[in-house]
């Protein structure tokens, strides 16, 4: 009896394909060592996933964009020409010049600095909100999938309640209650977006816990903790990575949407969504006020979506 596929690699079902990190039924497992027939040495699934990821042009474009934006955003305190709150009213409403590469806004902020700090805000909200969603959704999904019974029942009813609320409206309601601010918007987006991760985690565990290697592990007396940490979570992690990578741009877009509606982040903290909203009355004259934050949002969305798609393809067990 084998304790899952972690004990020894299994042979490939398809000629020429790398080994499947799984038990006898071919369930995936990232941590597994897989023999490389050409080299004659085992390679991990992560190695092959990485290799496939690097071969995808769009994913690489997305990665470059994402890394560029991360450097631009989080490096803003070092790279931006001015602080985000610094304004010179007498320099307001300038089109792009050498002095102000993206121009200035209606009260004289350097617009490049605002876009950089706005990008930082978006990324911060995106990462943090998804972290909150993970903190809420994954343990709930884990508990539901692992224990089943009344735990599963309770979690799923909670999921249904959350699903019954339209996401944006619920977020607007919560923002109205807790008020504007970066911390609050992270909390609200996180609270309203954990459901997908929870359901995915549960679904994965429901699938995996019936696998033969899990049954086998249980049969040899492995504890639930061991089963969960050594067999279930490693095998469930790949789709979760994909889901998380795709949840980040959704969270960023949610922040932009809420800020566009005026209930997200207050001035002077820059938010790309709010910058787009504020540009609306000026767009016919000061095109740069709408264009640059819109481009930044589009690039963020594009970058993360390409990376997410790339990860999905790279970690897809059917590609292995």
């Amino acid at each position, binding site marked *: 009896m084998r304790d899952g596929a972690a004990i020894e690699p299994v042979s490939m079902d398809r000629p020429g394909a790398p080994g499947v990190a799984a038990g006898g039924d071919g369930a995936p497992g990232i941590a597994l060592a897989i023999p490389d027939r050409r080299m004659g040495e085992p390679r991990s699934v992560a190695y092959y996933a990485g290799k496939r990821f690097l071969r995808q042009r769009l994913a690489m474009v997305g990665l470059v964009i994402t890394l560029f934006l991360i450097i631009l955003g989080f490096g803003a305190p070092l790279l931006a020409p001015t602080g985000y709150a610094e*304004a010179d009213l007498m320099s*307001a*409403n300038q089109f792009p*010049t050498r002095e102000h590469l993206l121009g200035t806004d209606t*009260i004289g*902020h350097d617009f490049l600095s605002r876009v950089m700090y706005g990008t930082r805000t978006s990324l911060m909200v995106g990462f943090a909100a998804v972290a909150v969603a993970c903190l809420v959704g994954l343990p709930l999904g884990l508990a539901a999938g692992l224990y089943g019974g009344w735990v599963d029942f309770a979690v799923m009813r909670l999921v249904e309640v959350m699903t019954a609320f339209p996401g944006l409206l619920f977020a607007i309601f919560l923002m109205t209650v807790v008020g504007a601010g970066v911390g609050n918007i992270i909390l609200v987006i996180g609270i309203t977006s954990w459901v997908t991760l929870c359901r995915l985690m549960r679904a994965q565990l429901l699938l995996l816990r019936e696998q033969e290697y899990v049954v086998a592990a249980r049969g040899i007396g492995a504890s639930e903790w061991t089963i969960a940490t050594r067999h279930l979570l490693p095998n469930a992690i790949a789709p979760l990575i994909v889901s998380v990578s795709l949840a980040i741009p959704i969270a960023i877009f949610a922040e932009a949407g809420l800020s566009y509606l005026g209930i997200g982040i207050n001035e002077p903290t820059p938010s790309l969504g709010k910058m787009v909203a504020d540009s609306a009355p*000026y767009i016919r*004259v000061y095109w740069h006020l709408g264009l640059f934050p819109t481009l930044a949002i589009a690039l963020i969305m594009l970058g993360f979506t390409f990376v997410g798609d790339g990860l999905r393809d790279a970690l897809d067990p059917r590609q292995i």
Partner: protein
Amino acid sequence: MSQTSRDPGPTRDVNTDRHQVDRRTLIRGAAATGAGMASLAIFGGVGAFPSPASVRTKAFAQAGAALPADAAPAEQQLWRQASDPTFAKVLDFYEAVYERPAVADLSSEPLVRLDKNFQIIPAAATEWSGSEDGKTWTYQLDPDLMWSDGNPVTAADWVRTFQYSADPAHAWDFTWFWSPVIVNYAAAVAGEVPVAEIGVRQGANVNELIFETVDPAPYLPSMLLYSAPLSAAALDSTGPLYNTNPETAVSSGPFILEEWARDQYLRYRRNEAYSGTLDIPMQHVTVKFAAPTTNFTLYEADEIDFMENPAPAELQIIQGDPELSEQLYQGVGDFRVDYLFFDVTKAPFDNLLVRQAFSHAIDRDAIKQQILGPLGNPAFSFLAPGFPASNMDALAGVQAFDPDLAKRLLAEAGYPDGEGFPDQELWLRAPTPVESAVGGAIGAMLTQHLNINVEIGPRDQKTFTDALNAKPTEIPLGFVSYGMDYLDPSNMLGVWLSGGRHSWTNESFDSGVQEATIFLGDEAERIAMFQAAERILVEDVPAVFIHYRTPVQLVKPYVAGDALVADDNGIAAIHWPGFSTGSTVPSGLYITQEAPADRS
């Protein structure tokens, strides 16, 4: 980039066109109207008012009088304007003053109205007089005025209307206006006396209406701009919302409700039974509900005939367009002033030095130059130039921009270079693009000159207003505006009385305003009393005054009439309160033959 030169901004280098007024004209002109108005209110009301008979004529259509030679046919006499749906929850003044479109008041004829020179003139009242002590006011009603249902308009309608407005079960949002003025009104609102005991009653006959005031009230004729009555018969038969349904609508005004598609449009047709003093060429009025930010688009698309307050960037487009710039008008509006206010009962704003530091840290000239342009002028006092008792020039130095002095004052207050000063949130009330920009600029200047972190916190209308009116107030630092309800200093300054809109209290100010308000003597002396009170207000800095508004309007070239001809002070604009029975504007506008035939 092809555009590398510095853009002048939407509001800089504004050319004065034929409809615009420069500041000097504005001050001179409005001062004259203000003084004239004030003297009329004070002296004209107490003595016998000139007989209005000479100004009464019958409406065009009813009398069969010809439209002007260049007017479009009667069926094309349609007035179209936009309105914010946020303020169109009801159509009835006596249900929610602040949530109804003002144009809905066209269904009722007030006792008086304003002419284009801001003079109070007869409307439903043909004449009025005050008692020697200024506490009893008798209005003679037009005996010919009829409701559209065939009932005569009588004193009973006003008596019922005022009683309904004071009913505590009704909880009207405008009771504050009448509470300090009409006998027993405040007590009735509080449920302490029956509404039948308020000081509004019928006189010797059904066409005589009497108001009894708590104190001498020389300004009462001005206040009665807000006196459009409800129909007592309709109140009894249908209830207070009779004017929200075309089938039950009853009107004493020149128009009556035809259709109300909520959040879409509101349409009035001519009230054929109207026999009031307005000669109105328009046959229909259509209000299209749309967010204010879309008004310019609607105007350009020929969907509306008139709009106010274009955004700064839109103003730049207008000024750069030869045709649109010819359609630009500028007036004084309701003498509105925008100001920063503090909760002076709590730290750090309980410290006068802090408030003074704030007042010296804001560069109004820069705000004017870069944001407002023709939309406003720097303010250093509460009463705008032209408003009765305005004293801006004498008060200009009290809160003048002086960043070095501001820093010194803040240091004296215990916050050198802003150290230890708590972060602040500046509340804005449902801000327009201009208000957002001004609020942002104020925050940036406080950061720049005083090293204080200021977050800009926009709130919706209700949240802000509730927090503002809460006792104690819930707004430590806010930005808001105030405009007149009637042209008397007691109205504007009254908002600062203890227990009023703000938390600031000052006994000297209170007594000064109250004494001046009821003062029946020499006009110049009364004005001086108000000016002394305003000086206290400005020097104690419960507020930092930022700018006086000078509203900009766009009117289609096919709209003509006396309302667009310069008034006695050289100001050509559709004057406040606009297309309403509180104004002669409706009788001063018509559609010419140049208008497109398919307007709707």
